[in-house]
């Protein structure tokens, strides 16, 4: 039983170590280091030996010294004997092994005898593994997007794995792709269009949704239940079904290639969820406040502007941010309705750019960074509001 647990523990921790070092090696390769093998076999042997040695040594040596010893041995073999690699790479490896030894330090011979110990180990390492794995898998494309936008076509042809950024060069050369897309491809104009469309959608949606949500939340009228249930059903209706009829109607009305056309469609598609989210919040506001207002002979307009809106700023902000995000990211309708480059939104402009096979990829990535940054910035800055918006409105997808 005990030996089995020791072996399982060693295996799991070894795989964890292999994973850690491999990610570091991949990142180092992408900085232009010529690492031609991950050396999984050697990593495996080291990982296994370290795990066993850790159990064997136990508390006889202080954790700090133990970590230093392990790290030094590994760095000496990996970064000096097998292949001579630069200092920054070895410092990274050193820190990883240090981190690894600290992580396995809580397991000992006695601990492995306990009931469920292997499952506990598996769970612990899966969590650790998961955190690193998902961070890597998610952030890697974003990282590549950013890094590629600073490279040049020739540099990437010479070495497709060298994504190191030369900060020594002139600012103009470093941000060349950005200068080009703003100068030659009119990205400044597209940013303005996208902003107008998104902010416009937010304002119009709120103007329409707040009164409607108030009515659904507070007033009694014929067709109220029908209205509130149909809101969500309408919301589930796919955009792809609306595209052809809207295209024909908008063509005949001359609304294609116009900001107004986009505003109308975006508002209509976000209205149901905005009403749904707002009415839920309005219901939670105590009724007594309004009853007092009615006694003061305040009209419904007064009630909404003087009582409801000031009290529901958090809900309104999360609806506003959510709607902004949908409108900013929207692609299908902008693809269908816009074919004149003068009225493009950012998303449509990037798609148009990619349609030309000659477009260097760093321009495409610079454009992608430009369209992504505002959304990520808003998301990180207003995360609290946006997350509640996402959860409530997440039927949209």
């Amino acid at each position, binding site marked *: 039983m005990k030996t089995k647990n020791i072996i399982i523990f060693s295996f799991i921790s070894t795989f964890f170590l292999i994973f850690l070092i491999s990610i570091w090696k*991949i990142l180092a390769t*992408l900085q232009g280091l010529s690492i*031609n*093998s991950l050396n999984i076999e050697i990593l495996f042997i080291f990982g296994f030996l370290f795990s066993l040695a850790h159990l064997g040594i136990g508390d006889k040596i202080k954790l700090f010294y133990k970590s230093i010893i392990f790290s030094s041995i590994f760095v000496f073999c990996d970064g000096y004997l097998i292949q001579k690699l630069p200092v920054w790479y070895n410092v990274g490896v050193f820190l990883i092994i240090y981190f690894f030894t600290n992580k396995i330090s809580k397991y000992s011979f006695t601990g492995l005898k306990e*009931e*469920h110990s292997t499952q506990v180990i*598996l769970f612990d390492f899966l*969590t650790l593994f*998961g955190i690193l794995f*998902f*961070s890597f*898998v*998610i952030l890697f494309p*974003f990282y*590549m997007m950013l890094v590629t936008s600073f490279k040049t076509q020739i540099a990437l042809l010479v070495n*497709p*794995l060298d994504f190191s950024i030369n900060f020594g060069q002139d600012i103009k050369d470093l941000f060349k792709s950005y200068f080009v897309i703003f100068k030659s491809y009119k990205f400044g104009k597209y940013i303005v269009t996208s902003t107008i469309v998104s902010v416009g959608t937010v304002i119009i949606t709120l103007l329409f949704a707040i*009164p*409607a949500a108030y*009515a*659904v939340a507070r007033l*009694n*009228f*014929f067709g*109220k239940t029908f*209205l509130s249930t149909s809101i969500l059903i*309408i919301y589930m*209706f*796919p955009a*792809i*079904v609306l*595209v*052809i*009829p809207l*295209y*024909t109607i908008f*063509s005949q009305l001359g609304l294609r290639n116009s900001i107004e056309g986009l505003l109308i469609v975006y*508002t*209509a598609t976000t*209205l149901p969820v905005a*009403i749904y989210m707002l009415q839920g919040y309005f219901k939670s506001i105590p009724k007594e406040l309004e009853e007092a207002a009615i006694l003061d002979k305040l009209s*419904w307009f007064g009630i909404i502007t003087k009582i409801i809106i000031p009290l529901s700023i958090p809900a309104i902000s999360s609806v506003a941010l959510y709607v902004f995000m949908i409108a900013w*990211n929207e*692609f*299908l309708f902008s693809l269908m309705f816009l074919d004149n480059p003068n009225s493009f939104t950012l*998303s449509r402009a*990037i798609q148009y750019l990619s349609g030309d096979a000659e477009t260097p*990829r760093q321009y*495409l990535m610079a*454009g*992608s960074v430009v369209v*992504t940054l505002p*959304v*990520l910035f808003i998301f990180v800055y207003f995360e609290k509001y946006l*997350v509640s918006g*996402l*959860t409530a409105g*997440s*039927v949209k*997808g």
Partner: protein
Amino acid sequence: MNDTLANTEKKTAYILTLPAVLLVFSIILFPIFANIWISFKEVELKDIRIPEPRAKKIIKSISDDPSKIKILYKLRNSSLIQEIRDVSFKDNFPKNFKIENLDPRCSYEKYNLKCEFGNWPAKYRENFQVIFATNDGSKIDKKNLKLIKPKLDGKSDNILLNTNFTLKNFKKVLFENEFVDLLLTTFYYTFFGTVGSIVFGILTAQMVNQKFYGRTFMRSVLLFPYVAPVVALAYTWELLLDPNSGTLNSLLLNYQIIETPINLLGQKYIEISILGFDFKLRLALTTVIMFEIWRYFPLAFLFILARLQAIPKELYEAADVDGASPFQKFFNITLPQITAVISILFMIRFIWNFNKFEDVFLLTGGASGTRTLPINVYQQGFAISDIGMGSAVSMVIVVLLLMFMFFYFKLLGKRVDEN
């Protein structure tokens, strides 16, 4: 007294909801009915442009006489396929103008030239010419004359409004469009995308529900793929996976894991042999599903995490006292608590994945075995320009969705009854 109060309340409610209801009805509900209408018609992209009578005004001076002028109108029917009936024409002239030659179809009254041109067949063209002179022999200002635009009017059939219906589109959808293949691809894409994103959602939610350093940061990072614009993400993936210069292939080649680059987005099948069994994997479709999972598992994560945080801690404490293992805790406490959320998520994600257009369109454009129903709507409607066909395909989507919803709620209803 009470009655009037209720009435004003009703009135207010209608006033407050009317703008929103009207907008949603005209942009969402009306098009859905329009879609049914169009799907029974033979309409092509070029048919939906309304035919217009057009005139180009060209002003020519007559040699030696500055007080006379020749005006040439190049008249034409903008449509190549439809006729325009009862075309009327009107143009204004300055007050000192008199007409020299009057066409029998026209009249000149109060400095207005009015003409009735009758019917114009498709592709109709005519050069129509009038000569004017000034009353007082003064010089004519050509520029001013050019600024006045003639007005034309005419009646034409709107192909969308006539009542010629046909079942041809649906016949074509079902029998000439590789319908089974289309349906299977859509089903694979939807099903595996949904299941995958839910599985990853459970894993990540379970992970973030533990306490560790940087947990709030991790929660934001996990949502990045969901909040960032599709266009940017799809093109980044495309560059990463590119067979010639993509980072992934370069890395695998560099580490000698593969010998020749794999075209992950452009290759329909890949042969894999596991334990002596050879089978074909739909490679491009799998890649597209991976992207789908990567982009949408954050939503499942968010839902499930919210549910996990609401599970009472006492349940786990009691399990600890009983000596339950972590896996037992997960399968016997956590999983039953989140089944309701998972079943809602499954429905929502299934419906939305079924209708997903952008992701596949941007990654492969529907090539190499990734043609799903929504992609087909676009291809039929805009690439082949057969609007009627596109509508018919989207009607198929609606019908399938309604069927899915029906079965889903029936099953769910049964389960509720059993409990």
